[in-house]
């Protein structure tokens, strides 16, 4: 079109010259007669079918050029919006992966799990097979009922071995959960009936097997030393209570089972409760040692309440709050910068309007700029989200990564964050676009008028938003530093619990099906290994775990561990050791952790005797079982200090035990997402010579490094896999790391969120300070010309800026006090730690505030007064 217009103008000029008009005048008149070339071009183009495309392209080109004219301001805007997107995506992806992501099986209102609860409803757990079998006919009246058993299994393929979660299933389990294999087949009815050695593997486990070992219905894997044929694959990432990698048929000898029920459509959750309420399924057998289980009840709960996810409501709400904080800071920051841009461009917008640009045209141009900013922010957000998720993952040890956590960038959330940020930009940007396009050109050309947005007004509005950012940054920084402090305190407690001699101690669990004789032989062999300094035989019982007790041992004879062998087929009875309640002081109830240990344990665990004595290998069990108790337990039960010599009953109807000694208590860290505590753990210790144990494990003290011993132990244990299963070979450091993982995750997510928020707030303040300094350039120039020094001028502007943020600092202080107060109750932090963190946070943020104000103001103030005044 340009060429055509040029040709037209040349004809007109030629005609005028032919009429005797001088060439220069002819050219001038031709152009005058034609009118505005640009206007003609735009009018012509606007009639074309794809004119909007041309318009769009032109707007995008012009706005890109406009943004490039202020590269730092553009980068700051894109960067802060991008950081906000990254932060929101990171935190919300975490929340989603932990709490919100749907479970892979169909959890609906009709799916319930049934657990066993103690008479006082204090303890809930899977139920014994005996009760399960008795309850099955009742439960089947409610709907389709399935039994399952869970645990870890040692999986060996070729030379490689690993521990994996395994779920044993009956014929109904997968049907109730509405799960089907993604390849291969389910076990046949005959395979279920015979508890055949067939297995379903999860896709992710299958994928790491060697290529040669991946043929369905042919591949052999070893599970606890027993060869199994892989017949099918289950989808990756399945979580059924824990992430399950291996699924095998349930065996008759599986002692502890859980139920899952898909209730019939007509059966309500309440009617299940009604049916189960008050009913016992196992009558106490006359003469049986264990009668406590007979008093336990079955209780149904919706499947999603079955402890699949940690601390559902509180922790999720906490992280929602953090997401909201990051979002608010981002929006406030973007708003501040958009206002600042408006002031810088008020003359340009007014000029465009004066030259005839329509209001829609101006609005389109501004929105094209916002589109560029959104695009840039999106790109920064993509990279930032990936990096921040990687950063959080890098701060979490992969070993023992919890089954419920599959943390990665969720792209739907990313798009949501981008849309939200873009909406913020457009909504906030719409105001200047509207005002700019409606401005009276003449008035708009005047300084400070026209657009209704004065420099001072923008600064005031920007300052309010900045105060908000500052306050939220202070809160988030305080919380993250306190969370890191809490994690360090927890780590210290676990670390202090072991002396330097034992930092390489190993612990491993042995399957409960291990015959005692084999286990004792194994212990003897390991004790003889050259790299092992000491072995402690330890059976760990959480509160209220039952202990198997051979019926023939009702009156335990004096036997040492090496002599005692259970008789084959001997029925086992159960004691609930949580019922080990001695006469309690002031009616308080104490539930100790019960540990069945050998004589090596106390030395290895750093438990010096406070009163009385320890039992040793030669301790004979006569009338009363010798018992050692921890200091804190003794203080609760025998406040007058008469623990040694006291006699308590093990179980309500069980044998009696006599306290022979009191040992040092151990502080234990218990960590959950968001909350954690450090508390003494009341413990009672029974000698392993009583021959009963649950969850047996060994604790080793090493002369060599952990890696070497892991290889030796793996080899040694593999020799015994035909006799029993074993699992969880790990150092105590690894075990502690795992125990503190939830708090570590919380601290990590908070720390990265705080970093992002502080970065956003700092950029926002920098932008506002730079804008304020530029707006007052003339005033500063005059002051400098009149003899004020650079530092006086800089100090004046910085003081004013800091005064603007004073309200935010006060608001932030109130917020940090509230956050500190709340965290004092939720985490193991001290008041002094909170005070230190407050001081550090305030000092650190004040320094950041000062620098982000000082640097841009100083830059303006350093310009020579003459240059400043000339530029006016």
């Amino acid at each position: 079109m340009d060429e055509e217009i040029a040709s037209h103008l040349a004809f007109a000029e030629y005609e005028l010259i032919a009429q005797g008009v001088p060439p220069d005048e002819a050219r001038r008149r031709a152009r005058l007669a034609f009118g505005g070339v640009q206007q003609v071009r735009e009018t012509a183009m606007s009639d074309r079918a794809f004119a909007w495309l041309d318009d769009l392209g032109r707007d995008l080109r012009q706005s890109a050029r406009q943004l490039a004219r202020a590269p730092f301001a553009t980068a700051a805007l894109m960067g802060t919006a991008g950081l906000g997107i990254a932060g929101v995506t990171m935190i919300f992806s975490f929340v989603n992966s932990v709490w919100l992501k749907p479970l892979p099986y169909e959890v609906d209102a009709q799916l319930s799990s049934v657990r066993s609860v103690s008479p006082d409803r204090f303890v809930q757990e899977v139920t014994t097979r005996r009760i399960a079998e008795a309850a099955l006919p009742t439960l089947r009246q409610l709907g389709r009922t399935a039994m399952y058993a869970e645990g870890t299994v040692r999986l060996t393929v070729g030379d490689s071995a690993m521990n994996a979660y395994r779920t044993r299933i009956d014929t109904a389990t997968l049907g109730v959960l509405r799960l089907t294999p993604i390849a291969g087949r389910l076990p046949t009815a005959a395979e279920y009936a015979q508890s055949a050695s067939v297995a379903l593997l999860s896709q992710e486990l299958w994928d790491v097997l060697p290529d040669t070992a991946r043929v369905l219905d042919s591949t052999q894997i070893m599970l606890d030393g027993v060869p199994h044929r892989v017949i099918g694959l289950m989808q990756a990432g399945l979580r059924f209570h824990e992430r399950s990698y291996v699924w095998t048929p349930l065996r008759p000898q599986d002692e502890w089972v859980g139920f899952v029920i898909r209730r019939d459509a007509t059966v309500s959750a309440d009617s299940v409760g009604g049916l189960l309420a008050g009913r016992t399924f196992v009558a106490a057998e006359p003469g049986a040692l264990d009668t406590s289980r007979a008093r336990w009840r079955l209780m149904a709960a919706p499947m999603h309440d079955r402890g699949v996810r940690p601390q559902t409501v509180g922790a999720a709400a906490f992280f929602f709050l953090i997401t909201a904080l990051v979002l608010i800071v981002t929006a406030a920051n973007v708003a501040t910068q958009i206002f600042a841009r408006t002031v810088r461009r008020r003359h340009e917008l007014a000029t465009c309007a004066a030259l005839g640009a329509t209001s829609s045209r101006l609005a389109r141009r501004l929105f094209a700029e916002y589109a560029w900013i959104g695009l840039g922010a999106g790109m920064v957000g993509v990279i930032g989200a990936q990096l921040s998720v990687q950063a959080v993952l890098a701060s979490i040890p992969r070993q023992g990564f919890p089954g419920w956590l599959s943390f990665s960038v969720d792209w739907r959330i990313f798009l949501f964050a981008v849309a939200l940020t873009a909406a913020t930009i457009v909504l906030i940007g719409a105001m200047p676009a509207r005002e700019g396009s409606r401005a009276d050109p003449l008035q708009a050309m005047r300084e400070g008028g026209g657009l209704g947005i004065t420099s001072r007004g923008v600064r005031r509005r920007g300052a309010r938003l900045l105060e908000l950012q500052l306050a939220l940054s202070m809160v988030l920084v305080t919380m993250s530093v306190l969370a890191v402090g809490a994690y360090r305190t927890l780590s210290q407690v676990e670390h202090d619990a072991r002396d330097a001699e034992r930092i390489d101690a190993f612990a491993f669990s042995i399957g409960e099906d291990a015959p005692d004789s084999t286990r004792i032989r194994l212990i003897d062999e390991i004790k003889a290994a050259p790299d092992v300094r000491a072995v402690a035989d330890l059976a760990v019982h959480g509160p209220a775990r039952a202990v198997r007790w051979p019926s023939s041992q009702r009156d335990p004879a004096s036997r040492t561990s090496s002599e005692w062998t259970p008789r084959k087929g001997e029925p086992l009875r159960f004691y609930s050791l949580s019922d080990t309640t001695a006469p309690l002081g002031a009616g308080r109830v104490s539930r100790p952790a019960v540990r069945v240990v050998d004589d090596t344990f106390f030395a290895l665990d750093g438990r010096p005797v406070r009163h009385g004595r320890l039992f040793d290998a030669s301790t004979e069990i006569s009338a009363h079982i010798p018992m050692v108790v921890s200091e804190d337990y003794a203080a609760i039960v025998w406040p007058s200090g008469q623990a040694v010599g006291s006699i308590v009953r093990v179980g309500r109807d069980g044998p009696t035990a006599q306290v022979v000694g009191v040992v040092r208590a151990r502080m234990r860290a218990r960590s959950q997402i968001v909350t954690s505590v450090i508390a003494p753990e009341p413990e009672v210790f029974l000698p392993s010579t009583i021959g009963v144990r649950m969850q047996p494990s060994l604790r080793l003290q090493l002369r060599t490094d952990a890696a070497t011993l892991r290889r030796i132990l793996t080899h040694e244990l593999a020799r015994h896999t035909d006799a029993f299963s074993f699992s969880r070979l790990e150092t105590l450091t690894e075990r502690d790391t795992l125990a503190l993982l939830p708090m570590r995750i919380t601290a990590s997510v908070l720390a990265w969120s705080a970093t992002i928020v502080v970065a956003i707030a700092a950029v926002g303040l920098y932008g506002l300070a730079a804008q304020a300094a530029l707006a007052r350039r003339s005033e500063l120039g005059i002051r400098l010309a009149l003899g004020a020094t650079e530092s006086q001028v800089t100090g004046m502007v910085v003081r004013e800026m800091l005064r603007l943020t004073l309200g935010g600092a006060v608001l932030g202080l109130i917020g940090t006090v509230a956050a500190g107060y709340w965290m004092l109750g939720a985490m193991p932090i001290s008041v002094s730690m909170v005070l230190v963190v407050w001081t550090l946070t305030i000092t650190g943020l004040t320094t950041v505030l000062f620098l982000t104000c000082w640097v841009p103001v100083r830059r303006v103030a350093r310009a020579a007064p003459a240059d400043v005044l000339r530029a006016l």
Partner: protein
Amino acid sequence: MPPRADLLQGSLDLLILKCLLNDPLHGWAIAKRLRDWSSEVLEVNQGSLYPALYRLEERGWVDAAWGVSPEGRKVKVYTLTKLGRRQLDEEREQWRRFSLAVNQVLRAT
């Protein structure tokens, strides 16, 4: 030179199509022919001519092709299409009815 008259709203398309009825012309030639045929009474606003030509081309009433003028300049030459001829007939008829109606109004006593 007789006094110039502004073109009536909507009449530019009709006049351009008429100018192109017998010969293909470039933009300047169309403006010149209109001036000549109207005895220099009608002066097309040059800023309106090219948007109108683009509009007619967009609607398929004229074709455009680059060529060289007798003066040796590179020019864009517009040719009336069949569709354009039909449009010209329609617009001519509309104009006839319009002018008839205006005349009737003016003759009324």
